[in-house]
């Protein structure tokens, strides 16, 4: 039997609620409804799931989805051993067996035929057929499926099938408002509120440019990076350039504008 404890979250992750999402998630968990979390990158989707797993005291198995992922990567496969083959459970199967929360991060990155394998787990059946092994797994009563994706990719190819979408309850996340975000950056890194406020201001500048050459604005995560660098003794303007501007754009005009925003925000 798999060691359940290794998937437990031991320390409380810092999570600042933006609305009623904590209570709503708890309600969904009580009914074991699958949950989908949408939102731009770095706005706290994964952190939220981690926090909820800690709060509910359940193990959490996270799978980062990618284009090359096949159904076997989720469900499991036979592997070779010295004297024959052995079945190895995939993360989804493990979660269903031990009663963990299975979190499929960036689900749209996975190929569409892969995502179909989660269907039987997400409706009233709550089962997972392993056709290669000839086994039907009844999901553990504690098992819950959570997926996240970033609708900002805007590619027609990268969207979930309706049949997948309609199996989930959903939260729509966005970057928190300025005051809340300031609090988050300050709390997460231990910097003072004034500095955090300035960083948030630069972040919002970039978010205003979304769609005008930027696919995504500066995420809360990057703001935290910048604050961390500054706390480590880096000059604020350099830290901002390094953590906020250079990663998100190669467009010289946008880089210039954001650099100016940094200069305008940090008076000497």
């Amino acid at each position: 039997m798999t060691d359940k404890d290794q998937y437990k979250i031991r320390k409380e992750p810092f999570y600042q609620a933006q609305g009623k999402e904590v209570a709503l998630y708890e309600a969904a968990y009580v009914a074991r409804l699958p949950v989908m979390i949408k939102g731009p990158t770095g706005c706290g989707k994964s952190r939220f799931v981690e926090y909820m797993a800690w709060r509910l005291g359940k193990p959490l198995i996270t799978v980062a989805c990618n284009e090359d992922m096949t159904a076997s990567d989720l469900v499991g496969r036979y592997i070779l051993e010295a004297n024959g083959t052995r079945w190895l459970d995939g993360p989804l199967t493990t979660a269903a067996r031990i009663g963990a929360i299975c979190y499929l991060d960036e689900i749209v990155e996975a190929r569409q035929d892969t995502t179909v394998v989660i269907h039987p787990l997400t409706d009233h059946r709550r089962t997972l057929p392993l056709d290669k092994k000839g086994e039907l797994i009844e999901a553990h009563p504690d098992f819950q499926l959570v997926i996240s994706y970033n609708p900002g990719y805007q590619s027609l190819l990268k969207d979930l099938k309706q049949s997948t979408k309609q199996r989930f309850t959903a939260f729509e996340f966005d970057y928190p408002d300025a005051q809340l975000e300031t609090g988050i950056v300050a709390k997460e890194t231990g910097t003072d509120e004034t500095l955090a406020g300035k960083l948030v201001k630069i972040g919002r500048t970039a978010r205003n440019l979304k769609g005008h050459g930027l696919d995504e604005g500066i995420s809360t995560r990057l703001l935290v990076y910048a604050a961390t660098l500054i706390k480590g003794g880096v000059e604020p303007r350099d830290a901002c350039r390094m953590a906020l501007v250079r990663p998100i754009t190669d467009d010289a005009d946008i880089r210039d504008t954001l650099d100016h925003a940094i200069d305008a925000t940090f008076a000497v």
Partner: protein
Amino acid sequence: MTEANTAYEHPLMKAYREQLSCGFPQVAEVFEDCMAEALSVLSKEGINAYLEYARFLCKMGRGVEPVLIFLEEWPSIATTLGESALPAISDFIRKMWKSPNGRAIVPFLQTLAATSRRLHSQEQMQDYMDLALAFMERTTGSIHGIHTTFASPGLPEFFKHSPYLLNQVSIAGLKNWVEYGIRNYGDHPERQQDYFSLQSADSRAMLQKERHGTLLVDNERKLDLYLRGLWQTDAHFVPYSLKFDELRKPIPYYDKLGIRLPDVYDDVNDVSGLDRYRAVLAHIIGHQRWTTAIFADNYSPFQRMAIEFFEDARVEALAMREYPGLRRLFIKLHPKPLENACDPETTSCLRHRLAMLSRALLDPQHGYCDAQLLDFTQRFHDLMAPGGSNTESSTEEIASLALSYVAKTRRQSDQFARVHFGNTEVDYRDDNRHMWRFHEQSDDEEMFDDHRKIVLEEEELQGLPPRHYPEWDCNSQTYRPDWASVYEALHPKGNPAHIDQLLIKHAALAKRLKRMLDLLKPQDKVRIRYQEEGSELDLDVALRSLIDYKSGATPDPRINMSHKTSGRDIAVMLLLDLSESLNEKASGPGDTSDQTILQLSQEAVSLLAWAVDKLGDPFAIGGFHSNTRHDVRYLHIKGYSERWDDEVKGRLAAMQAAYSTRMGAAMRHAAHYLQAQKADKKLMLILTDGEPSDVDTKDERLLIEDARQAVKELDQKGIYTYCINLDPKADEYVADIFGKQYTVIDNIQRLPERLPQLFIALTK
């Protein structure tokens, strides 16, 4: 002085006068003054050369003007350039004198002092004269082998404007500008004059291109991003030129039509031109956010000026509250008048006082110690102090503070006509016209004239305004800015049933095409399994093979897999040449019908449009023809968002051919639509029946090279161009333009069949 003294002349002066030996009475009048100045700055040899040369100018038979100017100007020129510059200059003048360009000597001498101040060194001066000499030689006319008979029309104009020109551009830039003028107007005296006297539009445009400083057009996107990013607003920028309005410098302002900004900013005090634009915008946005217009009628001009200064300071304070770093920028750009720069006994000092106050409001380290200034600075900050209920204050509150300032500091001398302006202009601030409302529109009794004018203007607005595109000049390897004007219009509508009939006529072909299209239908990235050689191991199949192998059966060696993408993301633009030549009868082997090329193109385009519509790729159709560079017409037939419906078919049915083929401009125009499409691949198909040509261009290479340049530009924008040429003799030029990306269709009868097939092949 007594009369006797005036008559007396120093013997030395007399000797000089004799040395000059110039009989013009005007020279005698100024001679003594000029000599006095010359003696103070020139060496002994210098004086000698000075008089010698003046003597030459006097005798050369060009009237009194050259010698007068020389006598007056030389001493100051010699101080900037050095006395040794004289031989080179005299040499140059002599060359002009020997050519038919004697008329240009006067303007040259007139502006010599100013030009030498701009050029500083003798080397630069030499460059300038070499440039002028080349100019002279190339534009001096000769007819039927009689050399240099006509004077250069542009040279005198050029000399007249040279100080101004050198103020704007470097010698190298000037050279390019002159080169352009000679090349394009060398054989057209009136136009040449217009060009070199800066009257014509492209003369200014060329000069603008060579200018130093930060051009607005180059940075519009950055400023747009600045507004959007930092201020969450957007605006339309309207440039105005500072250059042709020497007396009354326009200042930035905004109104309903947009924000007016100078077309170029030089760097000042370490502030880049771009940052100066940003400062102007920050100030203007401040007004837009925080200023409410107040009634002006009850205030005197002084009061209004004071209110404007205070209000400017208020919106800047609020903007700096938002972005503290702006203070650095504003301080660098704001003048810092000296406290005692203005004498209140003789001059009106209100402007000076207000500029100091404005500086003090902005800069905490202002260092002024005037009691009232300090008092009002304090009162301003109290008013703006954060923490209270009304932390932003208001235009009205600030107006009352300004009024009390005017009342407190009023001086009798403020009424003087002489106003102290020096160092009081804050050039990043706008003219505040938006701040004032007026109870009365005008003092005139009759006001209805205004209304009538507006109606007239509205009537004139028909069709879209032209878009201007540059054209490549292969002779000089430069662009001619804004050379071609493209007018875009909807293609007139005809009967859509005609197109449907064409499609029915080609039903058999359509069926064949459909089968090909089905193969092209969008599919996703697909995995190809069971490959003996592939990009990666297919673990499941590999295991199966291994099990087979271990259990003694023959294993399947195809254990790899690979991927292939077949998703389609192509935007297509079909550009049709609608020039006169399309009306010719199509000729070809086995030609029996009497269809024109136009009709065949119509059939081909209809089929292609039908095919692309079936595929679902974004697709647009445009037609073009031209009647000189001033009238390139782009006819809109189908846009990307339009469906393949009767509206579009109707336009296609009404296709008509006329005029010439200015391909480059049309391609650039079509590209700006295609560029806006979001697609991985962008394809522009050009259907034409001949080489680019136009009635106003004699040299046929020019337009071919321009089209080739347009292809290069498009390539840089990620647009793939492909030409379908119906001219059997096209090979001579089409490869020059399109490289390998073309097909020549000899048998035009087969065009309806070939065009869709070509498209399918291109996008497979």
